[in-house]
């Protein structure tokens, strides 16, 4: 299991487009993927779950990956957060 902490960088937060990107990316991997915010955990492969987090800019999230390709999954998802979902130039 891999646990990574990230901060939501993009200004609009995890709205529709970033949420879709997370779910699409996570679904490419076999590993389970959960996102935890303020003690509340959701399935990171669920678009409704990710949207329900309503994570705004600056929110700290814990990403939990568990499975055979957890390393690759963690890299892919963390880099989405680092690039601000393509919104920051």
């Amino acid at each position: 299991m891999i646990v990574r902490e990230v901060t939501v960088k993009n200004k609009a937060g995890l709205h529709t487009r970033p949420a879709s990107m997370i779910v699409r990316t996570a679904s490419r991997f076999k590993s389970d993927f959960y996102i935890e915010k303020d003690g509340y955990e959701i399935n990171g492969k669920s678009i409704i779950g990710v949207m329900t987090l309503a994570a705004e800019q600056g929110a700290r999230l814990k990403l939990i990956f568990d499975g055979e390709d957890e390393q690759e999954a963690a890299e892919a998802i963390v880099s989405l957060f680092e690039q601000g979902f393509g919104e920051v130039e």
Partner: protein
Amino acid sequence: MELQPTAAPEEPQERVFQGVPAAPGIAIGPVYLFNKEEVVVEARPLAQEEVEVELERFEQAVQRAERDLDKISSVAREKLGEESASVFEAQRLMLRDPSVYDQIRAFITTQRCNADYAVAHVLDQHLKRLEASNSAYLRERVADLIDVKERIIRHLRREKLLSAVDPEHIIVAENLSAADVVLFSRRGILGCATDHGGPTSHVSIMARALGVPAVVSLHGLSDAIQTGDLAILDGLLGRVIVNPSPATLAQYRMRQERYRRLLEAQQYLVPLPAETLDGHRFTLRANLELIEELDLLQKYGAEGIGLFRTEVLFLMRGPLNVSEDYQLHLYRQIVERVKPAPTTFRLLDLGGDKMLPVAHREHNPFLGWRGLRVLLDKPELLFPQLRALLRASAYGPVRLLVPMVTTLDEFRQFLDVLDAVKAELRAQGESFDEGIPVGIMVEVPAVALMADLFAEEVDFFSIGTNDLTQYTLAVDRGNDLVARRYEALHPAVLRLIKATIDAGHRHGIPVSLCGELAGDPQATPILAGLGLDEFSAAPPYLPEVKRVIRAMHLGEAQALAAQALQARTAGEVVALVSAWLREHGCGLLQHMQADEASANGTLSL
């Protein structure tokens, strides 16, 4: 329904519905009534051996829904851009969301019930949670989830959601969503007509962008019409005629043909300057709201953008906190495409008829919290937008237009904010146009009356006649009881326009007009005669305005304007200008917009 003589029941009554024009064009054809009534679902217990079949039925429905949404998002991406597409892509992901898909399967298996009921049950749970959320963003996602639920259920019942819509039909609905219009347009429909909506609602904007003739605000139409009825949709007059008589039909076929020839004939005008016979030049610019509309500038010969409404960029995206960088990304694309001509960006104009997403209801929204008033109260909206627009000005000419200004105090307050933002950008080493022109919308009579003093502090005026007329005549256009008292050519409005133009010219600043009047060829000679510098209108209306300008001498227009200012009623003005246009032989589109009077085909092109 009504009491009628029983004779000749095969001859249905012709009925005319008057609405609001949303997208130009004339369509004649059978109606497809698009009904979105609530889906009623009943539970049905299954025998154990039926469960497997039911799971397969559910899977098939999900796959068909996926194909639907793939198609919709690819059309949306191509025609409307990445942002609009992302909404449909999210809907598609919801179909296989484990908290939807897996739970529905589990429900069917454990409860041994039909898939329809399982779908409704599981999604209703999610809906309840979203509706109870205190995030406005999440509450707005409710509509997405309802769409998903209904789409799966309809597919379960093999009711084809949209594929029943045949090409060559006029779509009639109570209301249409953005997705509906996109998909319909792809299927080659003739036009759209809705009971609700206004000229700036989503349906109208989409219809214009996609070139589908449309009429909105046709109260009661969808109750009075059935699939298969023959109808005429007139997107110029804002009218739908159901079961037209053979005479009306013949008349409209001619009208349709004339419109087609008119469009053809306009082509030659596109590359020509908007110049009077005696060589006086006017500037014709476009009113736009979508990046995907930029192609229209060239198509209709607009010299830059006189009004880019930024609300839509925000509303398409859902939450109002569109990031500065994302805004810059959009504005920059626009500026780079339009340069060397300028792009006039109007700052977010919320309130009035443009709903704020926060549950914010006022008794009298047009006299309430809107335009600049909202921006000054909401620095979290104003600051990022100003920063993004200033940064965009490094890539091409940008003009800033401030909406709904009433007093000099509030305008000066705005200038202070602008100065602060500029100082911040300078300190951060960002480049921008230091002398970026700042103009105001003249749409409150107080501003028109004080225009000489405003003119000392602004770089240009843009007259918004839609609101100026409403405020001057105290008529709410959206109120059916008084809407016919909205008279765009009322002499009181013309006098305020004149006061604004004169004040602007005394101080050497250009005056533009960006209300619907700018695209109305009937108003063109008066506005030209009053000395207007710039006409800014929806691009399809520009060639006709140009035709009128090119057919007159400036002196004649000035004489007409002087007469119009002395008129006592709007009716007198209309009579004056109609006679004038006939004399000058340049009122072609106006004839099409006038009532059926000219339908005998005496006009030739």
